[in-house]
């Protein structure tokens, strides 16, 4: 596997779009977190009463959830990177060439799965660093409280990226896969969840949609009760997300192993 990953690295390291999006993601996390932190500080200093509602979002242990929630909106960047890296292979027909040159189909799709896991680990690491920076400049002392969110952030990254990879394998076109990824994730899933929860009062059904399940795992730091009434427990959500990830892996793998390439 290490040798396969080395070859993936050869493909990625000179790919400019990868670096553009990676840096964009990195910068965005810091900028978004900084702006939120700044706004919260200003609001609390100008209208002291709001401190009651807002609490201390950037102090330990709350910071894990806050940063996790903020950065979850940025997962579309690494998602797009995954889609582009996979669709590139289809466009250049290098998925054929790699197999012709002596990879098995299992190895080809397997190393893409490994890439998703590595990306998710890196995303988690970036989140941890951001949390430590903003946590240490806020009130509160570091403790193990709230660190479960680190695991949730990792699970959420896996859910988004495996979803993106599956779309790329199924549709083979970057435009189509990216549009579906964005439209579904940003618009349709929210609409469906809102309809199910507030119109038809079918909660918690709406929380079990593919990406939503991982979103609910890291709810908005204030007003959870308003946005996610009657949300299921974390352990049930984790099981749901893992079930989805298994399904993504299963479909992507099956499609790649059985079909003509």
């Amino acid at each position, binding site marked *: 596997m290490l040798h396969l990953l080395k070859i993936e690295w050869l493909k990625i390291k000179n790919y400019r779009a990868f670096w553009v999006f990676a840096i964009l993601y990195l910068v965005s996390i810091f900028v978004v977190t900084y702006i939120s932190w700044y706004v919260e500080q200003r609001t609390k200093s100008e209208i002291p009463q709001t401190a009651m509602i807002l609490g201390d979002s950037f102090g330990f242990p709350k910071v894990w959830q806050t940063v996790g929630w903020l950065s979850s909106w940025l997962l579309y960047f690494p998602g797009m990177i995954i889609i582009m890296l996979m669709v590139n292979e289809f466009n250049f027909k290098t998925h054929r060439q790699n197999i012709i*040159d002596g990879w098995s189909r299992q190895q080809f799709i397997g190393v893409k799965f490994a890439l998703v896991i590595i990306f998710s680990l890196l995303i988690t690491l970036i989140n941890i660093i951001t949390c430590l920076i903003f946590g240490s400049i806020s009130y509160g002392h570091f403790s193990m409280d709230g660190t479960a969110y680190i695991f949730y952030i990792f699970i959420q990254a896996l859910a988004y990226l495996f979803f993106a990879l599956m779309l790329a394998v199924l549709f083979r076109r970057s435009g189509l896969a990216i549009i579906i990824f964005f439209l579904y994730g940003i618009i349709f899933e929210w609409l469906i969840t809102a309809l199910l929860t507030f119109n038809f009062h079918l909660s918690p059904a709406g929380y079990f949609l593919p990406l939503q399940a991982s979103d609910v795992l890291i709810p908005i730091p204030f007003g959870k009760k308003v946005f996610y009434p009657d949300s299921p427990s974390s352990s049930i959500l984790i099981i749901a997300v893992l079930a989805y990830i298994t399904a993504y892996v299963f479909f992507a793998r099956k499609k790649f192993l059985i079909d*003509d390439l």
Partner: protein
Amino acid sequence: MSSVLSIDKITKFYGSIRALNEVSFNVQEGSVFGILGPNGSGKTTMLGIVMDILKASSGNYLWRGQPGSAPMRQQIGTLLETPNFYHYLSGEKNLRIAAEVKQKGQDEIEKVLHLVNLYQRKDSKFSTYSLGMKQRLAIASTLLGSPEILVFDEPTNGLDPAGIAEIRELIKELNRQGKTIIMASHILDEVEKVCTHVAIIQKGELKASGSVQDILDRKTVDETVFELAADDLVALQTIVQQMNGVLKTSLVDNYLQAVFANSVTATSVNQFCFEKGIVLSKLNIKRKSLETTFLEITGTKSER
């Protein structure tokens, strides 16, 4: 001689369209095996199946008596359909990836780049290459690790005449080194010049297979075609018609085409004309080419 590749009744459907119908043939070690057929006849589909990027609907294939596998493919240099490389990487970096996948040493990259005259452009991005350069890079990639088996799909595609001659010479040279080459082509002339064996495919059906010589001889009739010319073509035609063994004569452009029984030789024709007072300015025995045979086998129309 052992069999490098044996194909047994391979059938392939694309939806309801049958691209290959129970095609079987054997490629012997040390041969240059041409798969000949018009565009869309199933050549690339056939090669795609034996390289495991397409799945056969039914039938089997064996490489050196073994089912196809990834380690097996590492020992085969293959160019299939189009040069497939990362557009944003240089030629050299692309070859580096190919060498890693094949688990061959990096030291061969320079050598193969020289071999296809691409060394000067090795650091240019693949996307800036011309069609011919892309094709040459793909051929360079197949040569990494000097595999004993090479598969070329339309190897001279996109090359200029000099490039075509170079690649044909390269293929012959590789064959002289004892390598087995499987080559798909729609260019008869190419197959005739390069290959020792040929399989003719049309609309997914195997029409004929065997050594090029066998295929050529297969439908040979007992006649020889001569192309003759002299200052006075009409007089020449009259004289030639008096000769023993002449079957047919016809004036074509600026020469006379005469069909003789096989017993007639060039010497006897020349002597006969000279004795009748005509000096030939052209005397050419038209050898039956693979093209003629191909058209005989597949029918004259370009059926697809």
